[in-house]
């Protein structure tokens, strides 16, 4: 058992024991309080550049299931857990968490007071952290000196288009760091999907004759992406139904004149009630966000606020007043998290069906 440390930008250090890769890494430290689905979380591209602290104490219990990855190449910078179990068992032909992290050069530390870290982060706000062998001055200097890239999307999104054929609606998914849950839900609805790179133009997209376009989830701040992405959205939303999720939601908001703010503490969990304004009902969903749409900046002549987080008040959903274009901050695909709002994919399908029925004449 190798002793290693998680060191934080504010000078605090937490000792623990190593598992997974022994790499030394630096990233933003985020706490995730979702109870199930460590596999989905670790393999989600939105954690590019981030070190994940799990508040759920027992991680690795079920190994990694073949059908529950959210990406092919996970890019998280580290995994911090209270207790990890190196199991590779059961009917889903699983590999163990330890093996997985080693394969992908992701370091892990266990036997850490994760509750203390969670409380600390909540108090002090977002900060950088490193996983190191020795928590000395040099390590802290390195941590302070490290500048994290702001080119996360370009680093994780597909550089080339690829298809996921089926018989149904023709959906173009713009990949900003796509999670597989989105593709899974589209497949369940028989969609004929083409995934295109994040910097595809509206012409490229519309030339593929879509019934609808999905703006995917992805890592980092939306303002790190060029203006051209916003022009693409501004054009596409007038032509076909549009569905933005996570980063896609933030970009949709920017494209329609809203502003984005950075949260003091990133929120990763599925415990906040989300209120759907139109029905006044609450539901739960996986939320992984470092940024939020500034509700004061919204032009109500252009956008509806459709969902809000009842705990921190953040805007969780938007819809264009003139087009069937809508977006949500949270992850309705339930990978991981509750599937209470998975029906949003049905809404999207219905909007696409309407457009097909009317041969696009409404546009």
């Amino acid at each position: 058992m190798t002793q290693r440390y998680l060191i934080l930008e504010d000078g605090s250090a937490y000792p623990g024991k190593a598992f997974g890769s022994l790499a030394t890494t630096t990233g933003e430290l985020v706490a995730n309080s979702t109870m199930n689905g460590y596999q989905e979380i670790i393999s989600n591209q939105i954690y590019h550049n981030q070190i994940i602290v799990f508040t759920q104490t027992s991680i690795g219990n079920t190994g990694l299931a073949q059908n529950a990855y959210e990406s092919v190449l996970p890019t998280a910078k580290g995994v911090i857990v209270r207790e990890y179990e190196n199991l590779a068992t059961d009917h889903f032909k699983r590999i163990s968490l330890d093996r997985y992290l080693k394969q992908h050069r992701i370091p892990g530390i266990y036997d850490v007071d994760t509750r203390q870290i969670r409380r600390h982060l909540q108090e002090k706000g977002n900060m950088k952290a490193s996983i190191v062998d020795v928590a000395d001055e040099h390590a802290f200097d390195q941590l302070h000196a490290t500048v994290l890239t702001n080119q996360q999307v370009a680093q994780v999104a597909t550089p080339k288009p690829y298809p996921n054929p089926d018989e149904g609606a023709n959906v173009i998914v713009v990949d900003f760091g796509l999670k597989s849950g989105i593709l899974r839900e589209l497949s369940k609805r028989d969609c004929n999907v083409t995934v295109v790179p994040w910097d595809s133009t509206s012409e490229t997209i519309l030339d593929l004759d879509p019934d609808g376009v999905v703006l995917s989830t992805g890592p980092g701040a939306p303002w790190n992406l060029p203006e051209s992405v916003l022009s693409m959205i501004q054009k596409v939303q007038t032509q076909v139904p549009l569905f933005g999720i996570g980063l896609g939601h933030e970009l949709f908001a920017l494209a329609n004149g809203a502003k984005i703010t950075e949260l003091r503490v990133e929120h990763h969990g599925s415990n906040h009630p989300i209120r759907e304004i139109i029905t006044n009902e609450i539901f739960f969903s996986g939320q992984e966000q470092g940024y939020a749409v500034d509700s004061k900046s919204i032009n109500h002549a252009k956008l509806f606020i459709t969902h809000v987080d009842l705990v921190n008040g953040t805007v969780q959903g938007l819809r264009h007043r003139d087009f069937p274009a809508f977006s949500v901050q949270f992850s309705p695909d339930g990978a991981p998290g509750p599937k209470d709002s998975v029906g949003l994919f049905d809404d999207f399908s219905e909007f696409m069906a309407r457009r097909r029925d009317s041969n696009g004449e409404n546009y």
Partner: protein
Amino acid sequence: MGKIILDKMAMQRALTRITYEIVEKNKGVEDLVLIGIKTRGIFLANRIADRLQQLENVTIPVGELDITNYRDDIEHDSVSDDVKMSSNKIDFSVEGKRVILVDDVLYTGRTVRAALSAVMDLGRPKSINLAVLVDRGHRELPIRADFVGKNIPSSQKEKIKVYVSEIDDKDAVELIK
């Protein structure tokens, strides 16, 4: 034996979609009135009005229309004239309004045709649109809905039953073979 094809959640979503589409297509809610076709269309119209209230903070008038006497496929002899208009409850003028007719199921189109006649009898609206929870096909008249919750292709042998919790103890759409 009936099988649920739209559960409570799906029904709610369908009404939500319709609501957004109504605002979208009418570029707002100005001059909008809702007229529900009895019985379940009325409840659905009220739910759409509730949603518009939540969304836009406006109260959209909801009327209730009984089209029994306008139906061309029902014998009228048995219905006395007193009853004829008595169950309509439309306490607003449709003159110059954008009327949204709301019904649960669109089938042959005869109900809607009758509803159109009934509304026209009340005045001259600016426009009439049709919103239905379910479009099951088999039209006998050249009528189509502007807002459809869900297309449910069905055979004529099957029955579609819509339940609304206000009177039926549950929200659901069932296909009965």
